[in-house]
C-alpha cells in the first residue's frame, strides 16, 4: 500500500488526546474541539539499492557537470566535504548516507589514481565531531583509512592559515572559505537534505566558511526576511548564500554536489507510536507509550537524555542526485517536498507544538533554553511554505520543560549569553551590539578550536534564528517550563495547556482557532 500523504485532522468530541513531545518525554493533551492537528505524510518507500543509485547519480550528473569519474585524474587535489553531526535528526542507523556516498566517491578516486584526498567535516561554527560521531557518519573503513594520517579534518573557521578570502559579492558580502576546499582541483560536497533548507549553495558557502563570511547572512535582518527558511525563493538567507555560491564558482572553485534525501521514518519500531496518528494506535503502541512515558518521567533528566540520544532513526535514502549545485538542488528539493509537504487551509490564531529532546545543535548534548527557543521559533515555526501556520499577532504555545541547564563543554558561550545578554534584552536586533565581543573572545575561540565547543557567536545566531517568529507573533507561551527560565527568554510560562490557551485568548481574543503541529516527524505545511 502506498504511503498516505499528510493529514489535517479536525478535532471533535471523538478525537483521542493528542501526543505532545515535552523534552525528554511526551504527554497526551486534549485539544479544544475544532482545533486542527497537522500530521506528517507517512514515510515514502526508500531506494531499494542505494549503492547502485549513488553510482548511477555519479555517472549521470545533473546540469552542466561531467560524470565524476571523468573529473578525477592522477595528481589532482580532491577534497570531500560532508555535513556534520547536526544532520540527520535523529542520527540515522548505519550505514549513514554520507558513508554510502563517500565510499563510492573514494572507489572512483582510487580507480582514477588520485592520491591527494582530504575529507573535511563542514562544521561552519558548530562543534567538532567526536571520533564516535565521525565513525558513525563515515563508517569505520573510511575513518581508519584517513583519520590516522591526518586526512580526515574538521573545518576550523578560526585558523587564518586555513582560510582564503575569495572576494565580495555585489551586495558587499565577504566570501571566506576553507583554503583546502577552495584550492582543490575538485570539491565534492556530500549532503543530507533532511529539510528543504539544507543543501544548494548553502552547503559550501556556509559549511566551509568563516565568521567573517557567515555574519552577512546570519543576522537579525536576514532572518526576519526569510519567510521561510524552508522556501528558498522567499528566503533572504538563501539569497545571500546563492550570491556567495555563484561567486565561489566564478572564483574557479569546482564543486561537484551530491545531495541525498531521507524518508521521515524517524523512530524505530518500539517508538513507532511517535509517528502514528493517535486513533490508530494499537494495543502495543499504547503499551509502549504508557511504559516509556512513565519510565522517562521517573528517570533523571541526564539518564533520559542518554537513552533518547541513543535512538538511531531507521530513516533511509529516498533519492540521490549529483552534479552542478543548482540543478542538483532543484531536484532534491522536489524529493523533500514529496515527503514532507502537507496542504493546510489558512492560518490559525494559535499554533501549538511539542518540542522534542533534540535539535540540530544538541546532538548527544543538552537542549539548553536558547536551543529550546531556536527549535520552536526558529525551526518548527518556519516549517511552512506560503504563510506561517499562525497568523500575524497570533500565539505560539510550546511544550517543553525548558530547564536552565547547559552543557559546559559544548555550549560555553550560551551560558554567558543567557546570563548576561538575555538579562538585558531579548530583541534580536538589539543583541547585535554584543556579537563581536563573543565572536572574538579568545577563550571561546580556544574552546571551539581545541575542544568540542560551539563557536562563541553561536548563541547569537540561535537567537537571530527566532527573529522572524518574534516579529510575527503576539506572544509565546511555554507549557511546563521553568517559570524563571521561560521569563528570561521573554516568553510566558503556563502550567498546563488549558492555562496556555487562556493566556493565548487574552492576546488573540476568545475562542481562538488552534493548530497543532504534530512533529516530529518533520513536515512542511503548505499554507494556502
Amino acid at each position, binding site marked *: 500500500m502506498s504511503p498516505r500523504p499528510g493529514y489535517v*485532522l*479536525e*478535532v*471533535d*468530541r*471523538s*478525537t*483521542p*488526546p493528542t501526543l505532545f513531545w515535552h523534552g525528554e518525554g511526551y504527554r*497526551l493533551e486534549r485539544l479544544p474541539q475544532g482545533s486542527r492537528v497537522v500530521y506528517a505524510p507517512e514515510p515514502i518507500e526508500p531506494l531499494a539499492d542505494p549503492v547502485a543509485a549513488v553510482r548511477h547519480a555519479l555517472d549521470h550528473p545533473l546540469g552542466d557537470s561531467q560524470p565524476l569519474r571523468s573529473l578525477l585524474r592522477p595528481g589532482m587535489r580532491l577534497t570531500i566535504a560532508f555535513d556534520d553531526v547536526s544532520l540527520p535528526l535523529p542520527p540515522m542507523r548505519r550505514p549513514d548516507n554520507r558513508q554510502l556516498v563517500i565510499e563510492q566517491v573514494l572507489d572512483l578516486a582510487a580507480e582514477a589514481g588520485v592520491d591527494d584526498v582530504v575529507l573535511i567535516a563542514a562544521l561552519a561554527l558548530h562543534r567538532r565531531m567526536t571520533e564516535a560521531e565521525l565513525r558513525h557518519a563515515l563508517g569505520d573503513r573510511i575513518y581508519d583509512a584517513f583519520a590516522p594520517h591526518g586526512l580526515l579534518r574538521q573545518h576550523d573557521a578560526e585558523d587564518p592559515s586555513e582560510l582564503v578570502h575569495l572576494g565580495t559579492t555585489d551586495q558587499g558580502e565577504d566570501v571566506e572559505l576553507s583554503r583546502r576546499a577552495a584550492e582543490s582541483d575538485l570539491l565534492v560536497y556530500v549532503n543530507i537534505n533532511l529539510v528543504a533548507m539544507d543543501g544548494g549553495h548553502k552547503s559550501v558557502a556556509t559549511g566551509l566558511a568563516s565568521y567573517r563570511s557567515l555574519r552577512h547572512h546570519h543576522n537579525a535582518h536576514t532572518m526576519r526576511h526569510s519567510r521561510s527558511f524552508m522556501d528558498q525563493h522567499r528566503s533572504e538567507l538563501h539569497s545571500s548564500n546563492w550570491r556567495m555560491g555563484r561567486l565561489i564558482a566564478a572564483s574557479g572553485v569546482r564543486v561537484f554536489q551530491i545531495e541525498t534525501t531521507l524518508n521521515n521514518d524517524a523512530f524505530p519500531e518500539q517508538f513507532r507510536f511517535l509517528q502514528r496518528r*493517535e*486513533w*490508530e*494506535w494499537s*494495543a502495543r503502541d*499504547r503499551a509502549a*507509550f*504508557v511504559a516509556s512515558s512513565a519510565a522517562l518521567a521517573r528517570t533523571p533528566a541526564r539518564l533520559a537524555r542518554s537513552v533518547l540520544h541513543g535512538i538511531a532513526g531507521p530513516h533511509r535514502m529516498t533519492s540521490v542526485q549529483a552534479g552542478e549545485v543548482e540543478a542538483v538542488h532543484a531536484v532534491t528539493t522536489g524529493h523533500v517536498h514529496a515527503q514532507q509537504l502537507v496542504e493546510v487551509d489558512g492560518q490559525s490564531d494559535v499554533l501549538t507544538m511539542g518540542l522534542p529532546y533534540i535539535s540540530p545543535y544538541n546532538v548527544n548534548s543538552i537542549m539548553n533554553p536558547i536551543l529550546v527557543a531556536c527549535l520552536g521559533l526558529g525551526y518548527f515555526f518556519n516549517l511552512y511554505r506560503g504563510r506561517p501556520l499562525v497568523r500575524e499577532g497570533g500565539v505560539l504555545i510550546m511544550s517543553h520543560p525548558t530547564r536552565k541547564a547547559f552543557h559546559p563543554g559544548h555550549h560555553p558561550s550560551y551560558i554567558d549569553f543567557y546570563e548576561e545578554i538575555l538579562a538585558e534584552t531579548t530583541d534580536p536586533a538589539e543583541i547585535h551590539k554584543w556579537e563581536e565581543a563573543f565572536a572574538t573572545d579568545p577563550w571561546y575561540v580556544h574552546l571551539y578550536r581545541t575542544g568540542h565547543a560551539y563557536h562563541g557567536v553561536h548563541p547569537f545566531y540561535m537567537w537571530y534564528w527566532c527573529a522572524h517568529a518574534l516579529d510575527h507573533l503576539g506572544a509565546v507561551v511555554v507549557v511546563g517550563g521553568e517559570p524563571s527560565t521561560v521569563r528570561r527568554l521573554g516568553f510566558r510560562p503556563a502550567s498546563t495547556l488549558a492555562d496556555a490557551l487562556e493566556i493565548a485568548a487574552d492576546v488573540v481574543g*476568545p*475562542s481562538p482557532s488552534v493548530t497543532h503541529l504534530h512533529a516530529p516527524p518533520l513536515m512542511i505545511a503548505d499554507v494556502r
Partner: protein
Amino acid sequence: MTAARRDPDLGAGRQPTGRRAWSASAVTGVGRLARARLRRATRPAPFPWGAPTWPGTVARPVPSSGLGDEYDTAWARRYPVRLARAMVTDNLTRPAVHLLASPLVRGAELLDMAEAPVVIVANHTSHLDTPLLLSVLPDRIRHRTVVAAAADHFFDRRWKAHLWAGLLGAIPLERNRVSRRSVDEATALVEDGWSLLIFPEGGRSPDGWQQELHRAASLPAARTGRPVIPVHLAGTHRILPKGGTRVRRARTTVVVGAPLYPEDGEDARHLSARLETALATLAAESRTDWWTARRQAAAGTTVQDARGPDASPWRRAWALGGTPAAWTGEHDSSSAHGDGDPRRWAVRRD
C-alpha cells in the same frame, strides 16, 4: 433509597444521634463506595489505557461490520416490534417519565394540530430528552416516529444497536460528518410516512446551553418539504446531565413552537438557521414568557442568548443556574402575565 432515608427517625427535621447516626452514615458510605467501584469496573478504560476513539471527522478505512450508520433498522419497524414498543412506551416509559420529570407542556395544541409525518427537532441536554419528548407526543405521531440517534454512540456495539432500535425506534445518524447513507435513510422514512425526531445539536450540551446546529439535521425536512416542529426541553439537564450517573427528580418544561415549512428551493443551511432562531426563541420563552421571547427575537439577540455567555465554564454554569424558572418550573410571579400562574396557558400531558 438509602438506609438513612428509610429510617423513620429522619423525618420531620429529626436527626439520628449516637450509634444510629454512625450506622446510618456507615451504610450510606458503603453503598456509595460499592456504586463507585461498580462504575469504575464497568466503565471502559480511557485512552491510552483503553482503545482510542475514532475521530468523527476521519473516515474509517475499513467498513465496520454492520454497525454505526450501516446498521439496518428495518426489523424495528415491523408490526410485531412496533406493537411491543408501543406497549413498553405507553405502559412503562411514559409513566416513569411523568413520575420523574413532571412535564409541563406549552403549545401542546400545536402537536395535536400537526399533520404527520413531521420532523420534530429539539435541544438536547440529557438522555432523558428522547423518552420525555416521545411521551408528550400525541399517540398517532408517537407510534410512528423514528428517533435519529448518534451512530457512533448508540450503534457502536451490536447489543446497543438492537436495544435502541427496538426500544425507541432509533435510526443511526452520523453527527460528525455528513453521511449520505444516514441522511438518505432518514429522508426515505419521512417520505414513507414516519415522523422523525432529531436533536440537531449532534449531541447533548455539555453545560445545558444550546449548541450550534448541524446542517445535516435539516436535510430530511428540506428534501421532503415536510413541516419542522421545534421543541424546547428545559429541566432534563437537572434530572440526568451529561456525564451524570444518578437520576434525580425535577420538573421539566416542554415548549412547542409553531411548525416551520421549508420554502420552495430552500436549502438545508437556510432552514437550519431558521430552526436555530426558532429553538432559541423557545428557550427564551421557557425562561421568561412568550411575549418577552418575541421581543427578544425581534431585537435579534435570541440566538446568542440561547448559547450562553462567552465566558469560562463556571460563569456559564453560573448564568445557567440563574434561570430557576427553566429548571424547576416555579415561574416568577412578576412575569408579564400578571398572575404568574404558568398553568393558565400550559397543560400537563399526564
